[in-house]
């Protein structure tokens, strides 16, 4: 896959400084199932550009804009075709590249210093600034980190036990979930949305109500005055509870009242 691409590429490329001698290599073929993963490895347009520059051995001080732009646009087109969620940032960069390319086609005034007016200067600066931070991030990540790479010492003091209780906030819970995510056990089906959460909250409320009374009539579980969304969520909660066999929903016959009770034999705590 990438290997194949890289091989086709490697052979024909000549390394003349800033001078694209060869055709654009036909190296963009990536098997469809790998494409998404491949593109996801880029942290944004600058990252993709740096990849292209390296891959094609371009000179960052003298970027051949036509080639780079063409390459870049092909990737963007690929992403578009694959309906990958294409961040606006990639399109903005496309526009920047095209603009630089067209400015370079214009005859330059011979009077002023060309170096300073090089339309590529800003792009180069950004690429290098990003590369610098990218490397810094890697080195930072390589530093030993508490918990991940070393543990702190904390010896017990007997009377420490009666100290104040810890306080937490909602961000702590988010952080805790992040830790959970790290372990492969938490996967797709543990993803939760707000809506599911609200269903789960209502499930709990229903269980709590049924805990206090033996059973309730179906309609008693609903509070129409609280609005339609609430009704729907309550209904979904009942369905979910029934699915998880936490409650039983019974009806003697058509049009007779529907009763909801905790699953048979459930000892109420």
């Amino acid at each position, binding site marked *: 896959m990438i*290997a194949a691409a*890289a091989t086709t590429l*490697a052979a024909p490329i000549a390394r003349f400084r800033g001078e694209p001698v060869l055709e654009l290599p036909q190296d963009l073929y990536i098997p469809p199932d790998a494409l998404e*993963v491949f593109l996801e490895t880029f942290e944004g347009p600058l990252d993709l550009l740096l990849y292209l520059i390296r891959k*094609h051995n371009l000179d960052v001080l003298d970027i051949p804009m036509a080639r780079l732009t063409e390459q870049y646009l092909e990737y963007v087109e690929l992403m578009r075709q694959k309906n990958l969620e294409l961040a606006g940032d990639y399109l903005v960069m496309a526009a920047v590249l095209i603009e630089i390319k067209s400015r370079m086609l214009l005859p330059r005034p011979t009077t002023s210093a060309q170096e300073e007016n090089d339309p590529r200067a800003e792009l180069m600066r950004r690429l290098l600034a990003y590369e610098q931070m990218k490397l810094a991030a890697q080195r930072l990540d*390589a530093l030993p980190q508490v918990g991940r790479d070393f*543990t702190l*010492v*904390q*010896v*017990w*003091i*007997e*009377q420490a036990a009666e*100290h104040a*209780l*810890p*306080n*937490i*906030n*909602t*961000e*702590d*819970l*988010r952080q*805790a*979930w*992040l*830790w*959970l*995510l*790290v*372990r*492969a*056990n*938490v*996967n797709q089906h543990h*993803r*939760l*949305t*707000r809506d599911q*959460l*609200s269903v*789960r*909250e209502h*499930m*709990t409320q229903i*269980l*709590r109500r049924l*805990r206090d009374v033996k059973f309730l009539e179906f309609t008693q579980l609903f509070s129409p005055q609280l609005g339609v969304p609430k009704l729907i969520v309550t209904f979904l909660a009942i369905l979910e509870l029934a699915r*998880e*066999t*936490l409650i039983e929903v019974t009806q003697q016959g058509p049009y007779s009242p529907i009763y909801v009770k*905790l*699953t*048979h*034999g459930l*000892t*109420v*705590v």
Partner: protein
Amino acid sequence: MDSPSFDLQEVKRILEAALLTAAEPLPVADLKQLFDEEIGNDTLRNILTELAQDWEGRSVELVSVASGWRFRARPEYHRFLERLNPQKPPRYSRAVMETLAIIAYKLPVTRGDIEDIRGVVVSTNIIKALEARGWIDVIGHREVPGRPELFATTRQFLDDLNLRSLTELPPLEDLGQLVESVAHGAQIGGALAPEEDTVEATAPARQTSAAGASPTVN
């Protein structure tokens, strides 16, 4: 005593590191897991006793309590330690926070559900601590063999966190992007290192591949 097949000093150093960093007393059974070599219970207990002797005359001592071995500050030094103003309010351990997060986001859940997600056994102490705090309670039983208790967070939990409803908890969507590819890890990490511990697997893979990967570039 037969001559041990392991480096006694190194065993001591490892025991010391484990005991000094542990939040709870460590039973001998746990301590045995520290070593690649199989060390017998008696041998280990002898080494622990030796280690305790090494620490005699210092301000911290190694003691054996009901649930295992632990270091603790000697009572004579408490008066000094009290002079240090407690720097920060105490914090719950990660195990407690993870358990609480699972109950809050997945309620109603059984202990088994929590263990499925966390991948480790949930200690009774954690559940008790959260119940004692009034943050979780049992709202019923799941009708499966064993009839496990179903836990949910309470009104007080919401009050203490200043929330009106669970829906005000931070949404969890996209959290996956913050950690090193969990989703990919499952597929790719697997290819690189087949252990279940993806986290472990990704870390070294990165470094090694840096060297290996370079030629791909052109």
